[in-house]
């Protein structure tokens, strides 16, 4: 595999591995919680980037797969009393399946129409779950605390959730990298640049888009299950937060869409910034407005994002800044 011989991937994976190990050794709950959120966003942003950055389809409602996959996984853990691992996997597969089926319809739309449809899908999913009895309707589901006993108590379970989200974040980054360096990824990027021309060149666009959509929904489903497992409950308004979707988008745009490193950097810097804004007395109710302004500025002035800009500016760094 040519892709594995380049330094970029190994650097990112090494950085993520070291980060997780440091958190593990310092054994600090606050650091663990911050890192959980950061790594969760690294995973969410990197998986959305497969659709947004590589394929060029802007999904505003991508959080729906985090919500639906998370709901499914959580349902299996809490109601069906499954173990977390298979439940999380099923959560991911469920997200991917829903995406593949939805894709048959919404991936026929392009540009703004696709983006609007994805918002509609998220709202529809929320309304559906609100009225869906097995998932607890509007009040959602919660976990019996004795379940944590299976994982060595609630303290251990929190560490387990961190460890899993850490592994998934790494897996997402590796997947994103491999897709980008593959023939499949080349087809996706051809679709991004000009879908009709790509089809005339032989790219099976309908199938490739569906795969990209399903793949980008798989990891959010797993992450959702872990997230709600850690929280101990799931509710519709928590699972289908549209602003979370849009923030993920801002992260990708900030870091650099279509690059592997971009969503990682974007997730880290945006989350840090948000953390600062939320505790600052001046900005605490304005953080979403500021992310809107940030998105506007990025699109107007640095549409390639930080990593894209660096790649243009310093072509020699291209081996590292994938």
């Amino acid at each position, binding site marked *: 595999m*040519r892709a594995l011989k380049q330094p970029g991937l190994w650097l990112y994976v090494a950085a993520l591995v070291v980060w997780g190990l440091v958190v593990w050794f310092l054994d600090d709950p606050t650091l663990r919680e911050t890192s959980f959120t950061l790594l969760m966003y690294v995973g969410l942003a990197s998986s959305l980037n497969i659709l947004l950055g590589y394929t060029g389809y802007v999904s505003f409602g991508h959080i729906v797969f985090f919500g639906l996959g998370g709901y499914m996984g959580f349902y299996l853990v809490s109601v069906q009393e499954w173990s977390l691992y298979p439940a999380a996997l099923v959560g991911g597969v469920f997200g991917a399946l829903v995406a593949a089926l939805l894709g048959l319809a919404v991936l026929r739309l392009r540009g703004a129409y696709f983006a609007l449809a994805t918002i509609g899908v998220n709202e529809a999913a929320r309304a559906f779950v609100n009225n869906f009895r097995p998932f607890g309707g509007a009040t959602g589901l919660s976990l019996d605390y004795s379940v944590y006993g299976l994982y060595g108590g609630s303290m251990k379970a929190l560490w387990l959730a961190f460890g899993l989200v850490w592994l998934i974040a790494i897996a997402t980054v590796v997947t994103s990298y491999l897709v980008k*360096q*593959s*023939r499949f990824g*080349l*087809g996706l*990027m*051809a679709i*991004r*640049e*000009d879908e*009709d*021309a*790509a*089809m*005339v*060149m*032989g*790219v*099976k*666009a309908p199938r490739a888009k569906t795969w990209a959509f399903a793949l980008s929904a798989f990891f959010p489903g797993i992450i959702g299950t872990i997230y709600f497992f850690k929280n101990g409950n799931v509710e519709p308004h928590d699972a289908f937060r549209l602003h979370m979707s849009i923030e993920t988008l801002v992260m990708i745009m900030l870091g650099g869409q*279509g690059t592997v490193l971009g969503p990682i950097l974007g997730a880290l810097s945006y989350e840090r910034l948000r953390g600062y804004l939320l505790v600052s007395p001046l900005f605490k109710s304005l953080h979403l407005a500021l992310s809107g302004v940030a998105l506007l500025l990025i699109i107007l002035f640095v549409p390639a994002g930080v990593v894209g800009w660096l790649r243009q500016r310093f072509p020699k760094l291209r081996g590292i800044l994938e």
Partner: protein
Amino acid sequence: MILEVRDITKRFGGLQALSDVSFDLSAGEILGLIGPNGAGKTTLFNVINGVFPPDHGKVVFRGEDITRLPPYEVARRGLARAYQVVRPLSDLSVQENVMVGACFGRERYSLAEASRVADEVLVQVGLADKAKLLAGSLNVAEKKRLELARALGSQPYLLLLDEVLAGLNPSEIASMLDTILQIRESGITILMIEHVMQAVMTVSDRVLVLDYGELIAQGLPQEVVNDPLVIEAYLGDPQLTKRLLEGQLR
């Protein structure tokens, strides 16, 4: 016959874009397709490579009916196309553009093979030194060559060229014609739409003439240019044209 087109009819609302167009193309030939603006030439290409399904009629490529196949299936069977309005994949490098053709075309090469094929094709069309540039940064003549390179990257049996000479200056036209003849030498059949009349007349073995969606003439280039129907299509009434040319009108 590498391509058989039978009774192709296509209508857009009230506009009869193509009516009962039939022709054959034998392997190794260069067939020119000419006609006034709006005659349906590009529509015919779109029907042949599957962008639009025809209302009726059929397209047979290498013995297989490809009439209603989507464009990517047609491409995979070895029928490639270069667009009139260039459509580079701007944010990909020139080499990657050609690799898309190579990876998803007839041979379905792996990435490593595709990059080798791309390098060869770029030498053939004279873009080898631009391989690492972004496609969006090329000038018009280079983008035209890239269109050609991308189509060639897929190692097609048949190449549809839609006005690859348009917008080029005379020296660029001459070198592009050389490239086209070389492509034919390498065994690829060519169907080309062209407005640069002198060029199409020199390279084509045969010429088809479309006017208002109908095939009004076909034959050797010199037969076609003297056909009164063709002159009428281009210049209006042939008698009037003749008188005009002879200076009888003021």
